[in-house]
C-alpha cells in the first residue's frame, strides 16, 4: 500500500459480527461516525461476520499497513486477538470497547479500553418491569407478577443482562417470576417472536429482548399480543418513532441504552486532542452515564411517575455504590445457575 | 465382404431398373446421415435409408451397428451431424420427437419408454392428454385406451399400473401408444426380444393388418426367421454403414446373417450327449410372495446336476426372474429350501455363494449386470477384485488386473478401444459380452443364465451359447432361463416349463421337443402329472 503523509487521522473499526443489527454493532459505528463528522477524520469499518479465523489476520493486516492511526476493536470475543496484536505492534494505538483489560502489569501502553456495565442498566429494567407488571391501572397488564426475557444465544454478555434483570426485579418484589428463553442464534427473529409470545401466553406482561437483530421479533410480538417489550442497546421506541411506527413505539416503555457510542465518541475526541489516557480501562455504568434506562415520551405515557421515581431511587443507590449489581462476566456456569434459579419457575 | 456389397448394389440396381422408381414413392428417405456421439464415436456413416409407403422394412445388423441410432435420428431424439431427411417428398428438419409425432412418425423403443408408477391409460395419453382448461380427464383417457385397444384388437387393462404388467403387455401399451397418436410410420426397435412365439405371432398378425391399412413399418430384429416371416424389404447396417438393401424374399436366412456378420454363422449348436454327475443345485418346495402379496413363485422343486444344462422355458413374468434372483440371493424371504451341494443357502451371503463358484447372468443387464458409468475393467472385476491374487499390500494390483482384463476382452471378443472406457459406450451386445466374460471366467460350477442372449445379434449369441455348452462339458451345472424357445431347445439337455410360478412340465430330452409343444405348456393349456414332474428332482 502507498504511504502518503496523512492529512487527516484515519480510524478503522473492527466489528466482530456484522453491521446492520440496529443494536450493538450499529451503536459502536454510530459513535465513531459522530466523532468523525465532528473532528473530520477518515473512518472505515471491517466486519468479521462472527468468523474467529479472521480475527488475527485482520488485525495483523491493519497493524501492518501502518495506515491507521487508531484501531477500534471490541467485545470480549475479539479481546485475545486484539491483545496479541497490541503486544506485537506497540506503536499501533488501539481503542478497545466493551471488554476489560488489566493494565496492572504495565503492559498495553498503546491501548485504552472502555466498557459499559450492561448489568446495571438491566437491573433497572428488571425493576421497572417488576413494578409495571403489578400495575392495576394499565389495561395491558394482568394481575400475575410475571415478566419475561428473550436472549439470543446463551453467552456471558446475554447472561450479564439476565442476571441484572433478575436481580432488579427481585429487588423491588421478590415474588416476581422471571421467564427467560434463548433463541439459539441472533438472526431468527421469527423464533424470537414465538418465544416472546409463549412468555406472554404464560402470563408475562413485559419481555426484555436481548437478541441483536432477532430481537425485532420480540418487539413485534409485543405489538401483536398488545403487551410490552423492553429494548436493548439503543432507544428502540425512538428508533421506531423515527421511522413512523408509532404503534410499535407505544409498546416499548423503555430500553436499556448502552451509551457506548458516547463513550467511544469521548475517547475519540480525546484521541484527536491527544489527551487519550493510554493504558487505562474505564468501566462506566449508571454512574457516568455509561448505561441508562431510556426515558422518553412513551415511557412517560406508559409508566407511572411513581414507578419511575422508584426506579430512579434504585439508580441513585447504584450510582452511590450502596447497591452492587452482580455480573455474569467471570462467573462459571454453575454460579450463573444460582441466579437463574432465583427467577422462579 | 467386397463381393457381398457388390451383390447388393447389383440387386438395388436391378430393382430400380425393373420398377422405374419415382422419388415420391418413398414415404421416407434418409440421405447421407452421419451421426457422431459427443464422445467422438461415429455411429452412422453416410447412411442412406429409404422406405416405401405401406411396406414393412427390416433394419438389421449386429449389435452396435447403429440401428437404434439411425432410428433415433429419424424420431428426432438425436440430431444428425450431417445428412438430410425427406418425408413424403419434403425435406424436413426433425428437431425433437414432438415434430416426428406431428409428422406421423412414431417409435417403439428397444427399452420400454413407460412410466412405471402411472397407469396404462395415463401412459397411453402422455403428451396428448384429454381434458379441458389444462385439466386432465382420467376418465376420458381410460375411454380412449379402451377404444383403441378394441379397434386394434389388443386388449389391455387401462387402469393397471405399468409396474404390475408383464412385459408382453408393456410392449402392447407401447404399440397402442403410438397408434393412438395417429402416426403413419411405425418404428419398432426390437419389439419381439421379450415376447413368446405366440405373442410374437399375435403381434405379427396385427402388424400385417396395420400394413394393409396403409401404415408403413420399420422393424428392427435380430431374429432372422421373423424378418423372413414379416418383412418385405431389408436394409443391412454394419459398423455404421449401409452394406445393402434387398427384397427379403430373395435371400435365405443364412445369406442374411452372413450379410450382417460378414462370415458364415451356425444357427445350430453342435454338442454331445450330456453326462450328468452329482447334484449341484436343488430347490425344494420353493415359494415366494411379492410386495403386493402375490405368490409369484409357487412350490417349485427341481435339481440341476453337474454336466447338464437344464433349460427353463416359460412366458416371461411367470416367476423365472424371481426364481433366479432367489437362487442368486438377490431376493430374500423365500419359503422352502434352496440347497447348494446339499447345503441351504438361506444364511449365506451373495459373496459366500459366489465363492462356491456360482455365476449369474441377470436378465436385467442395466440394473444388475453392469455399472453404466464405470469402465469396462471395473465392470469385469466386480466379483474378484478383493481376491488375494489381485491385491498387493492393501492396494489393488493394477498391473495384474490390467493383464487379466485385457485377456478377457480378447477372449470374449469385446469390441472396444480400451478397457478404460465407460461401459456405456458399448453397444448392447458388447455390454453383454462383458457380463458373460465376468461370469464365465470364474471357473463356475453352477451357471445361472437368465436370458443370456436377449437382444443380441446372431454372432454374439452363437458365441455365448457355445460357451454354455463348453462349460457344461467342463463339468459345470447350467440353469438356462430363456424366452427364446429355439435357444432353450438348442442349448438345453432337459427342459422345465414354468407357468404362473409353477413347474408344469419336465421334458427329459430336449432334442425331442418342439416349439409348439413347449408353447402349449407355457400358456398353461397342458400340464404334466405330479408323477412326471417328480422326476426333475434327482436325489
Amino acid at each position, binding site marked *: 500500500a502507498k504511504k502518503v503523509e496523512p492529512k487527516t487521522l484515519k480510524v478503522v473499526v473492527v466489528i466482530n459480527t456484522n453491521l446492520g443489527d440496529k443494536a450493538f454493532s450499529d451503536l459502536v459505528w454510530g459513535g465513531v461516525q459522530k466523532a468523525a463528522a465532528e473532528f473530520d477524520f477518515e473512518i472505515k469499518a471491517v466486519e468479521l461476520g462472527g468468523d474467529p479465523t479472521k480475527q488475527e489476520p485482520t488485525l495483523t493486516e491493519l497493524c501492518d499497513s501502518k495506515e491507521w492511526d487508531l484501531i477500534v476493536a471490541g467485545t470480549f470475543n475479539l479481546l485475545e486477538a486484539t491483545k496479541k496484536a497490541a503486544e506485537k505492534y506497540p506503536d499501533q494505538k488501539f481503542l478497545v470497547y466493551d471488554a476489560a483489560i488489566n493494565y496492572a502489569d504495565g503492559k498495553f501502553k498503546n491501548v485504552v479500553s472502555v466498557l459499559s456495565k450492561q448489568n446495571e442498566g438491566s437491573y433497572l429494567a428488571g425493576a421497572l418491569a417488576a413494578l409495571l407488571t403489578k400495575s392495576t391501572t394499565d389495561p395491558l397488564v394482568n394481575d400475575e407478577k410475571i415478566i419475561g426475557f428473550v436472549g439470543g444465544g446463551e453467552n456471558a454478555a446475554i447472561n450479564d443482562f439476565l442476571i441484572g434483570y433478575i436481580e432488579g426485579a427481585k429487588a423491588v418484589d421478590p415474588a416476581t417470576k422471571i421467564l427467560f*428463553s434463548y433463541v439459539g442464534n441472533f438472526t431468527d*427473529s421469527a423464533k424470537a417472536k414465538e418465544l416472546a409470545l409463549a412468555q406472554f401466553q404464560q402470563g408475562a406482561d413485559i419481555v426484555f429482548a436481548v437478541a441483536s437483530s432477532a430481537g425485532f421479533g420480540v418487539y413485534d410480538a409485543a405489538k401483536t399480543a398488545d403487551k410490552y417489550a423492553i429494548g436493548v442497546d439503543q432507544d428502540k421506541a425512538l428508533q*421506531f418513532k423515527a421511522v413512523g411506527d408509532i404503534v410499535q413505539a407505544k409498546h416499548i416503555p423503555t430500553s436499556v441504552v448502552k451509551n457506548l457510542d458516547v463513550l467511544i465518541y469521548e475517547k475519540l475526541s480525546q484521541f484527536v486532542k491527544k489527551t487519550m489516557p493510554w493504558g487505562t480501562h474505564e468501566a462506566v455504568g449508571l454512574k457516568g452515564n455509561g448505561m441508562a434506562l431510556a426515558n422518553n415520551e412513551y415511557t412517560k405515557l406508559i409508566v407511572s411517575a411513581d414507578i419511575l421515581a422508584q426506579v430512579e431511587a434504585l439508580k441513585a443507590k447504584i450510582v452511590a455504590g450502596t447497591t452492587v449489581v452482580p455480573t455474569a462476566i467471570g462467573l462459571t456456569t454453575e454460579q450463573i445457575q444460582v441466579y437463574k434459579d432465583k427467577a422462579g419457575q | 465382404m467386397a463381393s457381398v456389397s457388390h451383390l447388393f448394389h447389383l440387386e438395388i440396381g436391378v430393382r430400380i431398373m425393373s420398377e422405374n422408381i419415382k422419388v415420391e414413392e418413398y414415404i421416407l428417405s434418409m440421405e447421407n446421415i452421419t451421426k457422431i456421439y459427443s464422445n467422438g464415436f461415429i455411429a452412422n456413416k453416410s447412411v442412406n435409408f429409404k422406405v416405401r409407403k405401406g411396406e414393412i422394412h427390416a433394419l438389421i445388423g449386429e449389435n452396435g451397428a447403429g440401428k437404434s441410432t439411425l432410428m433415433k435420428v429419424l424420431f428426432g431424439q438425436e440430431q444428425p451431424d450431417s445428412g438430410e431427411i425427406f418425408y413424403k417428398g419434403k425435406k424436413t428438419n426433425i428437431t425433437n*420427437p414432438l415434430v416426428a409425432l406431428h409428422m406421423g412418425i412414431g417409435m417403439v423403443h428397444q427399452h420400454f419408454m413407460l412410466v412405471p408408477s402411472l397407469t396404462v391409460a395415463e401412459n397411453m395419453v402422455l403428451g396428448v*392428454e384429454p381434458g379441458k382448461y389444462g385439466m386432465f380427464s382420467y376418465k376420458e383417457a381410460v375411454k380412449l385406451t379402451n377404444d383403441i385397444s378394441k379397434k386394434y384388437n389388443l386388449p389391455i387393462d387401462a387402469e393397471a399400473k405399468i409396474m404390475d404388467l408383464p412385459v408382453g403387455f408393456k410392449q402392447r401399451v407401447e404399440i397402442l401408444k403410438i397408434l393412438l397418436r395417429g402416426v403413419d410410420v411405425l418404428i419398432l426397435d426390437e419389439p419381439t426380444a421379450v415376447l413368446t412365439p405366440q405373442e410374437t405371432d399375435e403381434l405379427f398378425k396385427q402388424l400385417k393388418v396395420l400394413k394393409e391399412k396403409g401404415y408403413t413399418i420399420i422393424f428392427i430384429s435380430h431374429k432372422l426367421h421373423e424378418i423372413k416371416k414379416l418383412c418385405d424389404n431389408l436394409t443391412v447396417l454394419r459398423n455404421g454403414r449401409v452394406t445393402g438393401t434387398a427384397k427379403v424374399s430373395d435371400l435365405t436366412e443364412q445369406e442374411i446373417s452372413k450379410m450382417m456378420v460378414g462370415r458364415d454363422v451356425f444357427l445350430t449348436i453342435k454338442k454331445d450327449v450330456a453326462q450328468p454327475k452329482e447334484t449341484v443345485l436343488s430347490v425344494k418346495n420353493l415359494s415366494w*410372495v411379492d410386495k403386493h402379496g402375490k*405368490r409369484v413363485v409357487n412350490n417349485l422343486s427341481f435339481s440341476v446336476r453337474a454336466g447338464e444344462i437344464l433349460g427353463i422355458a416359460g412366458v416371461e413374468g411367470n416367476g423365472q426372474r424371481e426364481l433366479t434372483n432367489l437362487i442368486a440371493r438377490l431376493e430374500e424371504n423365500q419359503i422352502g429350501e434352496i440347497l447348494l451341494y446339499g447345503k441351504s443357502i438361506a444364511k449365506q451371503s451373495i459373496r459366500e455363494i459366489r465363492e462356491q463358484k456360482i455365476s449369474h447372468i441377470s436378465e436385467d443387464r442395466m440394473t444388475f449386470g453392469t455399472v453404466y458409468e464405470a469402465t469396462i475393467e471395473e465392470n469385469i472385476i466386480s466379483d474378484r477384485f478383493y481376491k488375494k491374487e489381485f491385491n498387493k499390500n492393501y492396494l489393488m494390483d493394477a498391473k495384474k488386473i490390467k493383464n487379466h482384463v485385457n485377456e478377457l476382452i480378447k477372449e470374449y471378443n469385446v469390441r472396444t478401444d480400451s478397457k478404460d472406457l465407460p461401459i456405456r459406450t458399448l453397444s448392447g451386445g458388447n455390454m453383454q459380452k462383458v457380463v458373460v466374460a465376468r461370469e464365465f471366467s470364474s471357473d463356475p460350477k453352477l451357471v445361472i443364465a437368465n436370458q443370456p442372449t436377449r437382444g443380441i445379434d446372431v454372432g454374439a449369441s452363437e458365441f455365448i451359447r457355445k460357451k454354455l455348452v463348453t462349460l457344461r462339458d467342463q463339468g459345470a451345472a447350467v440353469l438356462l432361463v430363456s424366452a427364446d424357445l429355439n435357444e432353450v431347445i438348442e442349448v438345453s439337455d432337459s427342459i422345465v416349463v414354468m407357468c404362473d410360478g409353477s413347474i408344469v412340465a419336465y421334458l427329459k430330452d430336449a432334442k425331442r421337443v418342439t416349439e409348439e409343444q413347449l408353447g402349449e405348456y407355457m400358456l398353461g393349456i397342458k400340464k404334466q402329472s405330479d408323477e412326471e414332474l417328480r422326476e426333475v428332482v434327482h436325489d
Partner: protein
Amino acid sequence: MDVIFKSIFSTVFFYTILRVATPLIFVSMAALIVRKGGIMCIAFEGMMLFAALGGVIGSALTQNLFVGLLLGTIFGVTIAMIFAYFVLVLQSNNVLTGLALNILGSGGTVFLLFALTGEKGTSSSLRSLQVPHWNIPIIKDIPILGEIISGHNLFTYLAFLTVILVYILVYKTRLGLRIRSVGENPQAAESVGIKVIRTKVISLLIGGLIASFGGMYMSMGYLPFFTRDMMSGRGFIGIAAQNLGGGIPLNTMLSAMLFGSAEAVSNVFQSLRLPSEFVQMLPYIVTIVGLISIGGVKKESKSKIKRIKEIKESTHE
C-alpha cells in the same frame, strides 16, 4: 410444570402451531412439486430469503402490497430459475448449486438491501407493508375451533389452499401428469414429445413461486420486516417435511405441522430449567424420529407378511 401443560393444551397453542407451520407448509409443497419433477433441490433457503426481501422492498418503495408480493415472487422465482439454468441446462451438480445459491441468499440479500436502501441487516426502518390477518366470519364465533383457525394471517390460509392446489395440480392436471412422468422416467416422457427440460423448469418455477410465498410470509406476515438470515433453516426443514410425507401432499402438510408442533412445544419447554441447548434440539430430534418411524413402516407391506404366514401355515399342514 402445570403452566406448561396449561400452555400446551390451550387453543392458543394450536393457533401457534398453524402460525409456526405456515412457512414450512409452503416450502414442503414447493419441495414436493420439485421432487415430482425429479429434481433434488436444496436451494429453497436462498429462494425464500430473496422473496422475503423482495416483498419488503417492493411494498416499502411503492406502498402497494401487490407490488410487494409481485416483486417478492419475482425475486424468489429468479433464484429458482438460476438453479434451473445451471442444473438443468448447464448440468452443474445440484447439491453444489443449491449450496451456492443458499450462500448467495444469505449475503446477496444483505448486499441488495444495502445497495437499494442503504440499510444493512434489517429492514425495520423501511415502511414495508404486511399482509392482513383475517377473522373468518361465522367460524370465528365457534368456541374452540374459531379460536384456533380464525384470525390468522392470510398467508396461513393461502398455505392450506396451496396444499389443495398442489394436489390438484399434481394429480388432476395435464401439467401434473407431465411433471410426474418427467420426474420418473424422462426418456419415456421425451419419447412422446414432452419437452423434459422445459417441464422440469416449470416444476421449479412453480416450486419457486410457492417457496417465495413461504419467504414473503416470513417478512410480510409472520413479521413485518426482513432481517439477515431470517429463514434460519426453514428451507431445509421443509425438505424434511416433504421427505416425511413421502411425496403425498396431505401427508407432507401433516409432516410440516408435526414439525411446527415440535417447534412450538420446544418454545414452551424453554421455561423448564433444562439446559437451553437440549430444548432447542427437540424439533430436529422429532424430525429424525419421524423419518425413522416412517422408514420402519415402509419396510414390508402388511399384505405380504400376511400372505407369507398363510403359505407357511398351509405347507406345514
